[in-house]
């Protein structure tokens, strides 16, 4: 039973067809890397799956829940949409941390807001908040920021900021974690620390989808690779299949730019 199922997804912005029918499955514990040149539709694919953009047609099923179905008349309520969205965590290319909050508050904000819906919130408010903070601290420790709980984003390096944003996404315990070019806004010397965190998550068998330009990393960390070209999946398979055994001409041409 796949945790993510995408069927025949299309999306266009005006007259530009960005996705021209994309289908793939992802099973629990898999790490999928999506590669391809700029404008091939990688980021749009991620954004459609977690509902930051609405696709034009196709179906998306996440964790057994129908998240998007263009053939169905039924409209999802705002609450259902939010619940669907919470199944997927997203790490942005440009971090998008909340600048006015400390690293710890960035991680706890969503959890604290969600906790308000609990029936025992009023009675146990203090205890719930301290539990949330302990949880957030342990996640921040996992990404190697045990000494940065009370730092503001502007006091952190790009790599540290991106690790806070990974912690923020993980705190909600999503079924899948999406990374949208997580190292593209970073200096080359800082990308290593992010890749290390992702590698560690992979060994903890976190299900992940990573849009990336780091080819060596994609090959090393993923169980599955998708090469996108001009809005369609050009090749798909294990890293070995895609990169070594049977690379298509289009992929060879693309990979040449990275040598």
């Amino acid at each position, binding site marked *: 039973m796949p945790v993510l199922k995408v069927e025949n997804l299309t999306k266009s912005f005006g007259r530009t067809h960005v996705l021209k029918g994309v289908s793939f499955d992802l099973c629990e514990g898999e790490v999928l890397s999506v590669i391809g040149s700029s404008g091939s539709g990688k980021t749009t694919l991620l954004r459609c799956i977690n509902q*930051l953009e609405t696709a034009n047609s196709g179906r998306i099923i996440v964790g057994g829940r129908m998240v998007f179905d263009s053939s169905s008349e039924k409209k999802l309520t705002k609450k259902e949409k939010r619940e669907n969205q919470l199944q997927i965590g997203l790490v942005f290319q440009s971090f*998008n941390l*909340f*600048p*006015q909050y400390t690293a710890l508050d960035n991680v706890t*904000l*969503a959890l604290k807001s*969600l906790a308000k819906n609990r029936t025992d919130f009023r009675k146990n408010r203090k205890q719930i908040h301290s539990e949330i903070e302990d949880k957030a601290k342990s996640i921040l420790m996992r990404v190697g920021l045990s000494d940065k709980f009370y730092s*503001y984003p502007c006091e952190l390096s790009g790599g540290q900021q991106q690790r806070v944003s990974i912690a923020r*996404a993980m705190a909600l315990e999503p079924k899948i974690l999406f990374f949208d070019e997580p190292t593209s806004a970073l200096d080359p010397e800082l990308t290593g620390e992010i890749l290390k965190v992702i590698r560690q998550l992979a060994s903890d068998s976190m299900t992940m989808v990573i849009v990336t330009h780091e080819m060596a990393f994609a090959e090393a960390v993923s169980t599955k690779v998708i090469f996108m070209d001009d809005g369609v999946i050009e090749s798909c398979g294990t890293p070995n299949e895609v990169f070594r055994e049977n690379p298509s001409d289009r992929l060879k041409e693309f990979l040449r730019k990275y040598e």
Partner: protein
Amino acid sequence: MSFFEITLILFQGFLVTLRLFALTLLFSLPLGLIISFGSMSKFKLFSIPTKTFVWIIRGTPLMLQIIVVFYVPGMLFNYPIFKDDRFLAALITFVINYAAYFSEIYRGGIESVPKGQYEAGQVLGLTKTQTFFKVVLMQVVKHILPPISNEVITLVKDTSLIRVIAIVELINAAERFIAKEALLWPLFYTGVFYLAFCGILTLFFNFVEKKLDYYKT
């Protein structure tokens, strides 16, 4: 008349100035936010009238607006609504005028918050309201503080315009000494009141800006 007596009389006028200043801020700051939502609305039914309104208010002199609000209702209904309450006419005009300016400042502040902040709120499962109040608002406040302080300091001096409908505020109080006592210096002396008050406001805004300096957007 002694210096002290004149100071006291001018101070009475200054109290009217202060009252207009405080009440204008009290009403126009929230009203401006409502107007800014109107002009940012996706529905043309809301945005076009609001934008036209802001254009008219910002495109005509405040002094003219005071005269219109004070005289026109009386001309239309043949009954002087503000006959006994000139101050109310002045206050209404100031609230509308300043709300229009504040609305544009708010709009600039809200639109300056990057789209990614809203998207981050969305993927973290926050509602739109939660995103606005917990994520966006503080950043807006930080952005708009310098233009707001500018506008507030302008307001201090704009209050002198209400003398066109013969309200005795600070300048008008001083002018009366010219006719009555042939004294010109009290008029110049009013500058000290304005300067002192604007000085206090400047210190206050510097203080608040410092308080918000702990983070950068």
